[in-house]
């Protein structure tokens, strides 16, 4: 009989009723529920101080929860088995300036008991566009290079769950595209990703679902396009721009077909109206009161 794989069938990340208090009154998280399935790319959004980083840190065992539970691939978050199956890139991180990129990855291979050896190191550096930097000390790298190296570090040992806290904050547009493509590729390999980011466009473009938290509570959750809701469409035709409001995204091809059937020449089609940014701002504003001020 084949051995049962630990965590088989369990979500990559399961967060239930999670609460975290610092000191006596500072509530960082309050009853948060969140699930990331294998091969799913979930975006975690929220304003500064919403509790996103705290949630990520609890998931990788750096912070102990005050209440609720978090499991990673079926193991309690923070346990060695849970940590053996994750890759983590912190928002504020630093690598020892005296280590080269290759040495840093080798250190993490040893800590993660990865048998990948030199080949894995070369592949990871290639993946993040740092193939030429294997012998470069991290202290001589730009912040963007360090962030890409951080992503490579998180991928050491082929983790089942990636916890990325603002992984593109220091990257230029080319670097962001590289990371986007990398995350999509990882999803294709079945790796679950929790992406904590302020870059709404990026999240909207690549994430399967989005959870918005504010002041420690989940204020909205769902698919990126579901959250965005019905917006509109602008269609450039030979007779001018036609605007149609309150249409679902799925209805746009039908509208275009009708126009073509009616003899219109179509030059461009643009989605307008409600986007993830609108949904985000609406959810956060609702949580703070209608005027957007915190409703304490």
């Amino acid at each position: 009989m084949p051995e049962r794989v630990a965590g088989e069938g369990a979500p990559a990340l399961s967060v239930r009723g999670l609460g975290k208090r610092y000191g006596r009154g500072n509530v960082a998280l309050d009853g948060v529920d969140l699930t990331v399935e294998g091969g799913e790319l979930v975006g975690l959004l929220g304003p500064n101080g919403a509790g996103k980083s705290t949630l990520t840190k609890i998931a990788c065992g750096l912070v102990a929860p005050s209440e609720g539970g978090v499991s990673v691939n079926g193991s309690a978050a923070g346990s060695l088995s849970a940590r053996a199956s994750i890759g983590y890139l912190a928002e504020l991180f630093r690598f020892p300036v005296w280590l080269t990129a290759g040495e840093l990855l080798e250190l993490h291979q040893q800590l993660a008991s990865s048998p990948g050896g030199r080949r894995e190191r070369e592949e990871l550096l290639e993946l993040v566009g740092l193939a030429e930097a294997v012998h470069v000390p991290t202290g001589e790298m730009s912040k963007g290079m360090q962030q890409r190296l951080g992503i490579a570090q998180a991928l050491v040992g082929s983790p089942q769950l990636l916890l990325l806290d603002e992984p593109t904050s220091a990257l230029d547009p080319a670097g962001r595209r590289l990371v986007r493509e990398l995350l999509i590729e990882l999803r294709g390999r079945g790796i679950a990703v929790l992406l904590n980011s302020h870059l709404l466009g990026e999240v909207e473009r690549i994430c399967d679902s989005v959870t918005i938290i504010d002041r420690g509570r989940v204020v909205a959750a769902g698919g990126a396009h579901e959250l965005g809701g019905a917006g509109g469409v602008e269609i450039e035709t030979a007779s001018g721009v036609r605007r149609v409001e309150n249409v679902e995204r799925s209805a746009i091809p039908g509208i275009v077909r009708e126009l073509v059937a009616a003899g219109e020449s179509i030059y461009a089609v643009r989605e307008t109206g409600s986007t993830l940014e609108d949904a985000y701002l609406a959810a956060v504003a609702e949580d703070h009161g209608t005027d957007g001020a915190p409703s304490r």
Partner: protein
Amino acid sequence: MSAASRQAAPGGDGGIGAQARLGSVIARYAVRESLRRRVLPVVGALTAAFLVFYALGAHFAFRELGELETTSPSGFVDIDDRALAGATLTGLAMFATLFLGAVLATFLTLGVVRGDSETGLLQPLLARPVARGTILVARAIAAAAIAAAYVLAVFAVSVAITHLTGDYTPDQLLTAGLQLAAAVVVITCISVLVSVFTSSTAQGITVLMLFGAGLTAGLLGQIGDALESATLIDISEWMSWMLPFEALYQDALYALTAETSGVTGFLLSLGPFGGARDTGIVLDLFALLYCAGLLGLATAAFMRRDL
């Protein structure tokens, strides 16, 4: 049992064999860090300067020994001037070695917990399946090994200099060296414990102030001996046990002249920064438990810390 209490304590489990292997990885990392961060070259340069000055001092001290009056006016008191000068110089060298060793131990453990977590160096390591206690103990062992090896090496060179310049060798050379090395191991463990609670700068200041407090206790003991004040002697002894690196240093001083008797032996018992005291194996066992206790406390506090 609540869900929160069922949550694994961060870094609190794992097989001993696996953690021992990971501990060796962390220890090697710590050793490489100390070599690459240029702490050792700087300490090496300072040590070389100290040894050069020590050699000059020893050379002139022994050369002028013949001009010293080493008998009483009545001519009955016999003092072994070579032993007196040799042990005094070696005692001074031991003090300097301990001081340099304490500075090295402090720098090697600077920011091991709170300092590194504030800069973001620690988090990537702790996200790996390595227990927090493993990281702490491995870093302490690596720093203690380097500091102890350093102290033994400097002590050996200073003894060699004393022997070459004055033909003097301590009575119990190995014991003196080992006790001095043990004193630096204690300082290393104190520094690791302090690193859990304070930032790097505060850690350095705290450890060096504790080192100073230990030396002050030794001085108090000497003053107590001279004044025959039981209170001062008691305070000194209590402080020496609370900060056992001082007691180990005093034991190391004793080992220099353990087999020297008479007036020379008495004079030599008044060592620099703490009179020589024979505390024996009890002290070594106490120091061992003390270090284990410090690392246990440090680990317990580290495991409760949110990073």
